[in-house]
């Protein structure tokens, strides 16, 4: 029973991690940029969900309909104003820029929303469904997981069936060749960054009802998202999805069978092992940078 409880709880938590990881991976795949502002974009998503709930009285899951387009637009503008300037620059410059943007976001949030943690309490915040005699699944986590699966499904159809999606895919495979084939790669970058931002904000909004909201919360999730991306293979959407669930389950299992104190140690041991044995990540292609 412990095993099942811990497995299911890990998969559900992992689903939200996966969503955060996928956004980061998508941006890396298309633009070849590690977005270190990703965690702070998640934090903004959390605050959006919080204010939609407290000021507009919209359920955090319904507020996604507002958050996704808002975040897309924000990401699109960020790319047009800042990110596209450094797209062909050295990696360290890109990292500095995105870290800088992240710092501006988190500290602006600190000024605007203060350092008091906010708690989003819905009527179902601490409710659970009980299955198979004794296994309890958190209702908000379950909802988040279902929505995550839906979003990943839509994203997959978008990437494999639509013209824009295929153009994005092509850009991520080979930027120069895509440009030669007449794909507007500058526009693709802006779309990819917009998508990455809305995935980050969605992950933030999905985790908000089961977590607390604080301007500095981005750092915790940035580290998770980055680990997930590298584990799954940088740039691989499927890899990030699997990576997220793997990390969720490993965390959950190690808290059950070792101690909650040790779960990060186990996660990073696995992370190092993957880097040593399969440097391109679980789903990354060999020779990719």
């Amino acid at each position, binding site marked *: 029973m*412990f095993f099942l*409880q*811990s497995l299911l*709880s*890990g998969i559900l*938590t992992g689903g*939200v991690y996966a969503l955060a990881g996928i956004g980061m991976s998508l941006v890396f795949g298309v633009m070849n940029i590690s977005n270190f502002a990703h965690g702070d974009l998640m934090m903004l998503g959390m605050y959006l969900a919080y204010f939609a709930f407290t000021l507009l009285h919209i359920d955090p899951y319904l507020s996604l309909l507002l958050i996704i387009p808002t975040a897309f637009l924000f990401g699109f503008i960020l790319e047009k104003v800042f990110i596209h300037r450094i797209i062909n620059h050295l990696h360290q410059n890109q990292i500095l820029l995105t870290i800088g943007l992240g710092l501006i976001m988190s500290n602006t949030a600190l000024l605007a929303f203060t*350092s*008091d*943690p906010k*708690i989003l*309490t819905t009527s179902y*915040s*601490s*409710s*659970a469904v*009980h299955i198979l005699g004794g296994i*309890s699944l*958190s209702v908000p986590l379950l909802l988040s997981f279902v929505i995550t699966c839906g979003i990943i499904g839509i994203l997959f159809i978008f990437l494999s069936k639509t013209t824009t999606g295929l153009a994005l895919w092509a850009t991520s495979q080979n930027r120069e060749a895509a440009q030669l084939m007449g794909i507007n790669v500058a526009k693709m970058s802006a779309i990819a960054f917009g998508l990455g931002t809305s995935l980050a904000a969605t992950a933030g909004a999905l*985790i908000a009802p*089961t*977590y*607390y909201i*604080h301007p500095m*919360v981005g750092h*915790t999730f940035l580290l998770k998202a980055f680990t997930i991306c590298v584990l799954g293979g940088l740039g691989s959407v499927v890899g990030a999805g699997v990576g997220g669930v793997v990390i*969720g389950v490993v*965390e*959950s*299992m190690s*808290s*059950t069978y070792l*101690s*909650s*104190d040790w*779960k*990060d140690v186990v996660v990073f041991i696995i992370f190092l092992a993957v880097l040593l044995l399969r440097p391109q990540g679980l789903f990354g292609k060999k020779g990719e940078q």
Partner: protein
Amino acid sequence: MKNKFVSIVAAALVALPLLAHAAPIKIGFINSITGKEAQIGENLTNGAAMALEEMKAKGIQVELIKEDDGGDPKNALAAYEKLVTRDGVIGVVGPYTSSSANVVASRSDQYQVPLLVPAAAKEDITMKGYKNVFRLNAPANVYSSVLMTAVASYKPKTIAYVYAATDFGVSTVKTAQENAAKMGLKEVANEKYQQGQPDYRPSLAKVKAANPDLVFLVSYDADAILLMRQAKEIGLTPKAFLGAGAGYTTAQFAQQTEISNLVISATQWTDDVNWPGAADFARRYKAKYSKEPSYHAACAYEAMIIMIETASKSNSAAKLRAGLKAGSWNGIMGPVKFADYNGFTNQNNHPMLVQQIISGKYETVFPAQFSKKKLVYPFTR
């Protein structure tokens, strides 16, 4: 002639501070105004500011020099050294955090300037025999002992610990284990966790399987809410939840009535305790800052009152030290006396209070002589 004039002016300038010294007494205040602990630091700032205003209204001439340590022991020590060497204060109130207070305490005998610690809980601070360190609040071991004494009459048999892997968490649980052993409680689960994680369910499921009578929790701010939510989700229902301070004593936690109801916690002060002036202090504080005072605010207020009152009767650090050692007070923190007992030096044997959240409100329930309500046991959902 010109040289003589210059030397007279120079002599006058040197003498001036000596003349000025005769006027107000100088007190230092080290606090965490910025940094991680800024939220709690603000409560201390407000409490101290109220005390200062009152003392000035009574006509006591006092100059308070405030220093920020940002929650960092290094800065706290630098602030203390600046206060005693450059500003020439005769006494210092603060710092807030245990780690800062501990470091400053270790140097106070070197500078011979009394330090009055208002709210830091680490036992060591008053256990090293420092002559110049005084502490108003009760040390960490009292958190667990008062909680267990409060439920002892209901004869619980087993206990589980769930706590943050921090200095405060680990040391509080260590003393709790000693107290539990004395009471003959059997430990059935021990879960230490890393702060800020989204999922504590696996740890809580283990605790649930052990089916303890008591669950003893040590967590900060928002983690407390997260833990209790997830405890409700997985259906953890012991006879009592004992929250050792911090996250279980905030107004934000109490407002989450669905999960906070009947949680028992230990605190240094409450606004419904029958100590002289406590209710009045709470009322004035609320009027001034439009929020409830935390125990930190009350500790800082009382510490500042004691420091200024005593300092106004003494004009040197040595006399202030003697005054603190000899004096006794009875204010919003109850009876205060800096005594030597059980290995402590200059420690106020402060009676901690046990409070229980009843429909979103903290009610003092133990010890009986300080409380109006009775403890609800066992816990029911």
